[in-house]
Structures are given as structure tokens and as C-alpha cells.
């Protein structure tokens, strides 16, 4: 059985689903951030796979992946900054306890 586009797309879906589960069902903000990173990674796999199998000469998917990595980095930076800022005020990173809009 040779490797096809489906393999990569299914792997991507599984990783995305795991990330989705983590992002929705966890209390810790850091774990949620990590789950989002997994989801972004899954999307990157899908992008690169599309690029490799559908338009191998154009690399458009890889360019998209580069932007995804850029956005992931930005998201992680700001997200962590927010988490630490909240932790400094509230002494917790449990998002179920961070439910006030203003304090």
C-alpha cells in the first residue's frame, strides 16, 4: 500500500480531533494553548499534504504552512503573556475560575 493523500489527511484529522478535545475539555489555560498548537500542527500537515499531492510544482500549501507557523508563534506569545498576567492577578490559570469580565 503506497502512501496517499488520504493517509496524511486522516492523520491530520485525528490530531485535530485530539487537539479539539483538549482545547474544549481542559481547565488549565496552558494545556488549552498546547492543544491549540496541536490543532495548528494538524492543519499544517494537511496543507503540506495538499501541496505535495495536488499541486506538487507550486508549493502553495507550504507557503500557507509558513504563515500558520508565524501565526502560531504570535498566538503562543500573546496567549502565554495573557496567562501569566492573569496568574499574577488571580493566582490561578484554571479557566473555569476566570469567569469575571472585570475585576
Amino acid at each position: 500500500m503506497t502512501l496517499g493523500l488520504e493517509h496524511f489527511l486522516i492523520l491530520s484529522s485525528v490530531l485535530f480531533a485530539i487537539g479539539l478535545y483538549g482545547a474544549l475539555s481542559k481547565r488549565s489555560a496552558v494545556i488549552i494553548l498546547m492543544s491549540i498548537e496541536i490543532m495548528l500542527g494538524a492543519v499544517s500537515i494537511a496543507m503540506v499534504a495538499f501541496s505535495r499531492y495536488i499541486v506538487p510544482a507550486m508549493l502553495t500549501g507550504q507557503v500557507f504552512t509558513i504563515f500558520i507557523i508565524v501565526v502560531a508563534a504570535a498566538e503562543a506569545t500573546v496567549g502565554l503573556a495573557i496567562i501569566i498576567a492573569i496568574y499574577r492577578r488571580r493566582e490561578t490559570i484554571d479557566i473555569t475560575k476566570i469567569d469575571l469580565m472585570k475585576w
Partner: protein
Amino acid sequence: MGLEIAFWILAVVAITAALAVVSLRNIFRAALCLILCFLSIAGIFVVLSADFLAAVQVLINVGAIAILIILAIMLTREVERGSLPNKLQFPVIASTVLFLCIAVFAVIRTPWQVSDLPPVEPTTAELANKLFGEGGFILPVEISAVLLLATIIGAIVLMREK
């Protein structure tokens, strides 16, 4: 043949690591597993003959983002039993499985128009052309630069002690 073995190993490692990230109680170990997951994704990129992307993935995700996450973990408390599920755990599992089924179904049933051309190798020069060359993505590159600048300023503003 070699590529297939590599794919299966990397896929199993990536999925196991990702599952560990969302199921381990110890946040520090979860972060280590996230690093493993990122490394496997970089391996998948190599399998997809995107070697430049693989290196960038290691450099940015493993070398920077994961380490930032670990540093952030160190700055908070309750590391060893920090990762607890919230009340929505079982609904989320159900909906996630549903989503997965739909996605897999869609992937399998879609007739992909796969090209038979060999992949471009090496990708570095080609990517550069795509990003900066004629008719390329120069505008998104500029926008992402602005995004990064905004990120830097935002992070500094958030973390500055008043």
C-alpha cells in the same frame, strides 16, 4: 518503502504524544510530549519532502514555542497535578468523535485529483520565489511582519509591571 515505515512510526508517535498531551495530569510532562508531537510533525514534513518546513518547524515550534510554554509553566504553580478536565469532558468526547467520523468520511469519499508529478526538491529556493518573487505572497509576508511586531508590543505591554 522507507517512507512508508517512517510515516507509520511518525504517525503513531504523533498521535500517542498528542493523546498524552491532553490526558497527562503533570503539565510539565504534557509539555514534553508536545515537543515530541512537534518533532513527529516535523518528521511528517520530511516524509512529504518539505525539508525546509521541517527545519523551520523544529526551530520555531520546538526551539521557541515549546520552550516558551515550559517557561510559562515554571512561572505558575500546581505543575504536578495541574491538568484537570472540566465539566464538559464527556460531551466534548462525543462531539469530537463525531467530528472525526465526519472528517474521515469526507476524506475517504472525496475523489482527490492527485497529480503524478514528482515533488519539488530542494524546496528552499522555490519557496523563496513563491514568497518574495513576482506574483507571490509578498503582501501576506508584510502583514505577518506587522502581526509579529504587534505581538511583540502586545506581549511587552501585557507583561510589564506597573
